[in-house]
Structure formats: structure tokens, C-alpha cells
């Protein structure tokens, strides 16, 4: 098993100085699915944002190693081309940019980076159709502008579809389950399960245990106050659902 992600004593604060992450240690190996759970404000989304390289956070201490490289030294787009994928909690609407064109640009950026030939429109369309079928997603999403006018469920499905297309080494899903009805949740879960592979690691960030009924994690971590306060196997998620986060804090 390859060490995919190695987070050591990670501290991060907002531009106003508020410290959100206060010493995170986390190690994720390839083939593993980790779930990071925690109450609102615990730092879950900040962790995802810092890993993806979003502006507005300052890492004050600690290191993040991704496939043996210093992740924090890389630009956000370089991280993505190196195989890191973030499924956004709030996918961004981009008027005027066609979803298909966007995805083809992304895939070809990735292929150029790997020294592979770019896909032409026909080749791209064949890949798209295969993936859509696997995920049971309709083609209509592709003809629209990126996320514009999409329902909450459509936006999340679009994220999962992008993940399937980009075939990342490390996928981080930031509350992809939030606000989904049971059918949408199943589509998302199917997408995640199809992505499980010996070469890939998946980190699922979630507030609730219910996604974990469909996606079985190898490890579950509880994030609270910017630290991982407890780790365990999948039974920890069930325990959390029963006891709530307050109990964990007290423990």
C-alpha cells in the first residue's frame, strides 16, 4: 500500500487570524476510504479547502505530503493534475461555460500533464457516454452551463460525474451527501463505490452517518475544534449516530 496522504500537525487560520485547524494528523493509504465526521464548525470544510488549495487560508504550522511531495507548495490546478480531486460542498455556477467544454478542457489539461495525447470531440464523447451510463446520469446535464440552474442533487451528481471522468488518485468529498434525497444519495454512493480501487484513496467528509450506510469506510475520524479527537473503524460512525458528537467531546 502506498502512502497517499500524510498530514502532520496541520494548523490553518483564516485571513482574519482565527485558527480553524489546530494540529491535524492523518494518514491515508491507497485503496482506503476514510470518513471524517464532525459537527458544524469543527473544521471539516476548512481541511478540504486547504488540501485543494483555496485562497483565504494560511497554513501556520505542519506539513501535508501527497504521494511523497509537498502538497502545500503546489498550485491548486497542479494539485488537480497530480490526481487530487475535491468534490465541492457548494459547486460553483459558471454562466456561459458549457459543462461539456469545461470537462473536456479539464481532461485534456490532465492528459497534457501526463504526456498523453488530447482527446478529440468524438473520443471524449465516447468516454462521457460510458461514464454516464455507469453512474445512471442523464446526458442533459452536459449541454448546460456548468452548474447553472442545476438542482442541489444535480450539482452533486455533476461532481461525482467529474470525479469519474478525471479518475483521481485521491478524492476528497466535502459533504457531498448534504441535502440529498435518498435516490440522489444512492447515485452519489454508487459513484464513490465504483471509484474504490487499489490505486485510489477516498476521503469522505460528512456530518451524518447515513452516507456511510452505502459507502463503507475503512477508517472513521472525528474532527472537533480543529483536531482529530477520535479514530476508529466503521463502528465508530454508528456509535456517533447513536450518541451524538457531545459524548465524544466528553470522552
Amino acid at each position, binding site marked *: 500500500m502506498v502512502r497517499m496522504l500524510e498530514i502532520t500537525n496541520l494548523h490553518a487560520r483564516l485571513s482574519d487570524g482565527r485558527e480553524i485547524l489546530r494540529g491535524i494528523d492523518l494518514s491515508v493509504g491507497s485503496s482506503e476510504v476514510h470518513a471524517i465526521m464532525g459537527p458544524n464548525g469543527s473544521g471539516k470544510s476548512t481541511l478540504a479547502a486547504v488540501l485543494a488549495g483555496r485562497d483565504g487560508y494560511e497554513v501556520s504550522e505542519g506539513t501535508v505530503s501527497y504521494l511523497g511531495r509537498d502538497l502545500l507548495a503546489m498550485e491548486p490546478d497542479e494539485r488537480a493534475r497530480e490526481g487530487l480531486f475535491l468534490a465541492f460542498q457548494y459547486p460553483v455556477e*459558471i454562466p456561459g461555460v458549457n459543462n461539456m467544454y469545461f470537462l473536456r478542457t479539464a481532461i485534456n489539461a490532465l492528459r497534457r500533464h501526463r504526456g498523453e495525447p488530447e482527446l478529440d470531440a468524438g473520443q471524449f464523447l465516447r468516454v462521457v457516454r460510458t461514464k454516464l451510463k455507469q453512474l445512471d446520469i442523464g446526458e442533459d446535464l452536459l449541454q448546460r452551463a456548468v452548474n447553472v440552474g442545476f438542482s442541489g442533487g444535480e450539482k452533486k451528481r455533476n461532481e461525482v460525474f467529474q470525479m469519474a471522468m478525471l479518475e483521481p488518485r485521491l478524492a476528497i468529498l466535502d459533504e457531498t451527501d448534504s441535502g440529498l434525497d435518498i435516490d440522489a444519495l444512492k447515485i452519489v454512493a454508487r459513484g464513490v463505490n465504483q471509484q474504490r480501487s487499489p490505486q485510489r484513496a477516498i476521503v469522505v467528509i460528512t456530518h451524518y452517518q447515513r452516507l456511510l450506510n452505502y459507502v463503507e469506510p475503512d477508517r472513521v475520524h472525528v474532527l472537533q475544534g480543529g483536531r482529530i479527537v477520535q479514530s476508529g473503524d466503521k463502528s465508530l460512525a454508528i456509535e456517533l449516530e447513536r450518541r451524538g458528537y457531545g459524548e465524544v467531546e466528553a470522552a
Partner: protein
Amino acid sequence: MSAIVDFPVKPEARPYLDAFARGDFTRDRREPEWLVGYRKASLARFAELGFPSRRSEAWRYIDLRPLEERPMLPVRGPKRASDRLAVRARLAEIGLAQPTHRLVLVDGRFSREFSALDRLPSGVWLGSTAAAIAERPELLRSRLETPPLDPARPFTSLNSAFFADGFVLDIAPGFAVERPFEILHLASGDTDTSLHTRSVVVAGEGSRAAVIETFSGAGAYWRNDVVEWRLAPGAELARVAVVEEGEEALHFGEMLATLGAASRLSSFVLLLGGRSTRQEATVRSEGERSRCDLGGAFLLSGRQEANILTTVDHAAPGGETCENFKGVAAGRAHGAFQGRITVRPGAQKVDAHQLSRNLVLSSRAAIDSKPELEIYADDVKCSHGAAVGDLDEAALFYLRARGIPNAEARRMLIEAFVQEAVELVEPAPVREHLLSRIGFRVASLEE
């Protein structure tokens, strides 16, 4: 040297008066008396006005000092044969992919060689202004001698005095032409000269047509173009102007349009190239229930400056105006949009909306947006909106988070921003041409 005027003229106008008196720019032409008289009167008007003042609102965003310091006199006589290969290459680049009716002006004069006018549909007269003076003198005379909408336009007067050629399009009542008429204005490399072109478009009752004009060239020339559009009742005209002038060129373009009852004008201007470019549209809605869609965009970088001005004057009731303009400025460029809508007393039930949205891509670039509504009727719907901002950071991050390099992601967002304004442009081949020229310009915007 004969004196044209008997009063003291503005110093910056003097070299132009002297050139006119020498007559070298007209040596090759024998013009009818009425036109000679018209030119003299126009020159006198220019002498009286001088250049626009820096304090004049209509010219505050264009730096005229270089032009004041160094006169750029009209091209003398017909130009030497230009480099044909270069002209052909340029036409292939800036022209429509599948041209049908094409009129080419090289250095402000009609070029039969590069034009394609042999398949003109019936009901259409399209030719050079010089040809129209000979073949359609009444049409031209009536248009030129109609008092201008606003008499205080120095460069329009200068244009009247000096125009060498242009195009005239006359569509008979009831005729509809699907394929666009393409007019290409090329400057072939003369420097420190001015090109004055004067054109007229007349659309008969219930006729329909589309015209795309492209301005392009090489060298430090000054283009001063004036086109007059007249729409009879029920006529529908689409006009697209693409300005891709040489890097050092000045471009001042003026469109004067008069709308008859229930006529419809759609205009789109795209300013991409040229050191200083200015496109002004002055539209007078004379007939009831006319409709006017004005759109456009400028994309600027380096030290470019560009100015789009629109004035729509609703003199009749029930008219509609819809304006949508986009501006993008990178580097040290400066762009400005000025839009005025006037609704005259009694012009009730006018519906007029104006939107100007702008992207400023660097800390040294700037865009000004100045809407102006003058409403003298009480039962109207008018609105305007203006925004100036930077690229959407969240959208940029989203694209980058999918592996798209920063520069490419920025280009995608800039292009999407400008494309929105083009969506309604008809017909489709013209729209596609605009999208391709925008894509081409965006590619070098932030280099």
C-alpha cells in the same frame, strides 16, 4: 490657394483646410456641383468647430492630443497597387468563412478586385459611394443634405469634406435578404494619413437584411468612418461592426440611424484592435413602435483605449430600446461606455433598458460606465444598470480545482463573459464569426 472661409480657424483645423484648398485629395474626381458645395460647407463647419474640446463629454475618454500635435491628412488620390497577397491573407483572416456578398475598401476606396458583387439578389443595390454618386445621385444627395441629427460633430463635418469613398446599400421595399452583406475596410500600411469613408444604408418598407462591417489594417493611420442608416416603416436591419485595426491606429466610427414606424434595428459593435477606438451610435426613433437593440463589447490590453457611445432618442410613442454592453480591460487599458436614452414629451409607452457590465483584469486598467436617462414623458418604463468588477474568484478556483491552468481558466471565464452579449446576434454565421474573433482576441489579452 483659395480661401475656404473668411473667419479665423482653429489652429488644429488649419492643415486640413490647406489640404482641401490644394485639392490634391480630389485631383482624380469630377464631382457634381451639389457635392462640391456640400464639401465646402462641411469644411467651413469643421473650421468653425475645430477639434472636440477635452471638456466635451462625448470626447473626454479619447486622447486627441497626438492628433492635435500631428495632423493626419487624407490619403492623396488613388493609392498605389497594394500588396495583393497581404490583402488576400488578411481578408481570409478577418472575413466571414463563407462570404456571399462582399464589398472591400482598401485605404478608403472601393476595390473591385477583392469584392464579390456579382450575385446580388434582386431588389438590392450595393456599390461604392463613388459609384452611387454617379449612378444614384438623388439617393445620396437626399441623405447627405438632410440636416444632421446633431450639427456639432467636428469629425463628421471633416468626413463630409474629405470622404473618398464608402458603400451604399439600398434595399427595395418588401425584399428580404438572408445572407449577410459583408463590408471590409482595409488599411494597407500608410502611416500618418487619414481615411475618411462615408456610407449610406437605406432599407425600404418591410425589407430585411444584415450587414457586417470589419475594419482592419496596418500602420499608424486614422480612420474616420461615418455611416447613415435609414429604416423605412417595418424594415428590419442588423448591423455588426468589428474593429480590428492596427496596433497604432486611431478609429472613430459613427453610425447615425433613423427608425421608421415598427422598424427594427439590431446593432452590435466589437472593439478588439487599435490604439484608440471609438464607436458612436446615434439612433432617432421617429416612427411609433420602433425597436432598437444595441449591443457591443470591447476587449482591451496594453495601452489601448476604447469608447462606446450610444444615444437613443425616442421621439415617438411605443418604442423599445434594449442595450447590453460588455467591457474587458487588461494591462493599462482604458475603456468607457456612455449611453444616453432620451424620451421626448409625448413619447409615451416607451420601454428602454440599458445594461453595461465590465471586467477590469489588472490594477492598472480602468473602465468607466456612464448611463444617462432623460425622460420627459410620464408613462414609460426605463432602467439602467452598470457594474465594474474582477473575475469571479469562486468560479476561477472551481476551474483550477479541476486541473485547468490558471491562465486558461481565466481565458475561459473572460470569453464566457463576453459571449453572453453575442448570443442574440443574427444571423448565425455572423454570430459564429464574432465568437471566433473574440476567442482569438481573448487568447492574447493577458499575455
